């Protein structure tokens, strides 16, 4: 009874928020509902017959969720999802409010929720998922998240409550994630990446590596192969903990470029197969897949093609950068912000690998911390090349217009923005705000 009232009120708030353009109406209703009834999420879900898929990890949540959602929809399943970025308890509660009927029930087949790293323990206290995907843990915003070891420890203790009704989908190549599968009652499936074209072993400095140490005994790990950062074929020389045998390490079709998206694809395929989809059905759905906003999304602006590669932390930046180098990028625009969703500390730009940036023709820079990025490039390129190639503009619209102007009709502008910078850039490029 209480919950029907809360969903009713929530829907009204949500409507009026969007009607009067009060900004982020997507988390308010959930926030209020949880304040009045902390058990709100648990109670709504226990009434509904819905399969729940939770997706967590530093990088790849939105893309993996989109891949799964797209495939399920094409196979006539009904889905609810939280908005990307609304991935705390209040965002999930709000999603439940907007989809529940008068009796406080949700009549859909699947709920796919992206979950913030720090919110996993709270969420698992409320939700018993059918599938829990743990993609990876990279360094991201030390000022907000703290050390990745701490996150992994918190995850580990909250996973103890899961039973065999939950299937964990874990990254075998990430030692911290793989190790979470030990001694649990939940079912475990592992994904990996068997891309023989990549071997960073001989060039390990090419990495923003963060957890090359054994999650069990603390010894430095040996790698037979490194795919990127600390992901690869790992083995502890002391306690013999090693990469578990994967249930999937390749697939017939990849909808997005970049090896990081192979991991996302494998995680999605593994989840979809558990739900009875065949490889053929999955591949068909991938062929019509449109990337989520800012994740390799293509936008046409003033008749020129732009592709946006969200680059929100060292690993995500390195992967975006590697991918656009492979795509023979000539003109790039890097936008560095330091707002709360980006992380206020921008020191990480000194950890990224910019090798090969000297081969770009035009490098445009913008964002709240444009001069910090300019300094990073001055030291990378040297003064002469810096002056030749780098153009700094703290006004984003102007930076975008200038960089687009230099393109010929065949060229693409590649934008590498932090999170809030991606939202700003998208607003300029499409004229719409997303969140």
């Amino acid at each position, binding site marked *: 009874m209480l919950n029907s009232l809360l969903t009713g009120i929530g829907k009204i708030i949500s409507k009026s928020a969007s009607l009067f353009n009060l900004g982020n109406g997507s988390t308010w209703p959930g926030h209020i509902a949880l304040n009045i009834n902390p058990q709100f999420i648990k109670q709504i879900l226990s009434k509904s017959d819905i399969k729940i898929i939770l997706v967590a990890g530093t990088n790849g949540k939105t893309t993996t969720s989109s891949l799964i959602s797209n495939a399920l929809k094409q196979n006539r399943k009904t889905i609810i999802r939280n908005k990307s970025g609304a991935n705390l308890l209040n965002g999930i509660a709000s999603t439940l409010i907007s989809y529940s009927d008068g009796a406080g029930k949700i009549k859909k087949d699947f709920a796919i929720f992206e979950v913030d790293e720090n919110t996993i323990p709270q969420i698992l206290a409320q939700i018993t998922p059918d599938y829990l995907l743990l993609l990876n843990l990279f*360094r991201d915003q*030390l*000022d907000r998240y703290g*050390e990745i*070891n701490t996150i992994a420890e918190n995850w580990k203790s909250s996973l103890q409550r899961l039973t065999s009704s939950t299937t964990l989908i874990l990254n075998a190549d990430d030692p911290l994630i793989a190790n979470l599968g030990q001694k649990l009652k939940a079912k475990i499936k592992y994904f990996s990446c068997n891309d023989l074209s990549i071997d960073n072993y001989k060039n390990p400095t090419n990495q923003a590596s963060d957890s090359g140490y054994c999650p069990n005994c603390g010894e430095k790990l040996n790698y037979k192969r490194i795919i990127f950062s600390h992901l690869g074929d790992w083995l502890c020389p002391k306690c013999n903990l090693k990469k578990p045998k994967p249930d999937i390490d390749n697939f017939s079709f990849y909808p997005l470029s970049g090896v990081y998206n192979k991991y996302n694809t494998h995680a999605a395929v593994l989840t979809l197969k558990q739900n009875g989809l065949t490889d053929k059905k999955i591949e068909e759905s991938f062929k019509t897949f449109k990337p989520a906003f800012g994740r390799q999304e293509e936008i046409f602006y003033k008749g020129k093609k732009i592709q946006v590669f969200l680059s929100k932390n060292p690993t995500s930046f390195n992967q975006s950068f590697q991918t656009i180098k492979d795509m023979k990028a000539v003109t790039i625009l890097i936008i560095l912000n330091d707002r709360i969703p980006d992380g*206020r*500390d*921008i*020191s*990480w*730009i*000194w*950890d990224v690998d910019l090798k090969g940036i000297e081969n770009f023709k035009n490098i445009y820079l913008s964002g*709240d*911390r444009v*001069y*910090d990025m*300019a*300094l*990073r490039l*001055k*030291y990378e390129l*040297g*003064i002469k090349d810096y002056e030749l190639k780098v153009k700094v503009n703290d006004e984003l619209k102007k930076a975008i217009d200038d960089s687009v102007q230099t393109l010929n009709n065949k060229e693409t502008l590649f934008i590498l923005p932090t999170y809030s910078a991606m939202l700003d850039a998208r607003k300029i490029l499409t004229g719409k705000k997303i969140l």
Partner: protein
Amino acid sequence: MNKKPSTKNQELIIGWLYPELMSTYGDSGNIMVLLKRCQWRGINVKIINIDQKSKTQDLKSIDLLFAGGAQDKEQSIVIKYLKKHETEIRKLIEREVPALFVCGAPQLFGKYYEPSVGKRIEGLGIFDMTSIHPGPKKERLIGNIVADVNWQNLYPKNQELRTKSYMVGFENHGGRTCLGPTAVPFAKVLKGYGNNGEDKTEGVVYKNAIGTYFHGPLLSKNPEIADFLIAKALFIKYSKEIELKKLDNTLEQKARQMIARRLGIKL
């Protein structure tokens, strides 16, 4: 007046202490800044990483010492290695070889550090200071910071070399440091927390060794500190005052101003 000798054909050896264990965010940026600012002036640079396998002999030739931040878990491991080379490190510092210890590193060069969990770590005692982490529940000191560098202490004898500049950077630390009676602060906090969030002191200086809670690539925005370290290293190595070629710091100043403006400080 004799013209001061140029920096051609000179070489500096930068010793980087335990880069694998002492690296949080962007610490390597400091090494890059030092390296490039030397190279742009024709000074050759060799960087040696001091790690678990290094012998005391390896430390002897170091002209400039650097250590980045370590997380609490790594602090207790690092101190064991540092203690092995304690005598040699102390000799370098006493010989006025310049050093920069950032973020959590200075805690290990003070008298002791009490982490939030685990045992008290006895430091090398080079700086007269003590550091205590008040526990995981107490809030960390995080944010942009602007401080007024105590240049008089860094260049006590040479009026000409004195420069006025504010330091701008980022801090993120749980530990609180209190300076002892003989310690000299590195800078005065204008905005931010500094050593303990209370007494406005930031960092510590002993001879030419600087300890600071500024973390990550602090030298990138504060080239005067980088140039101080380089100039001192050359002076100690070649026993003569060497004038560094001036480099253009316009971008650095703009990057600092962006933060200072936000914090309501005019540079």
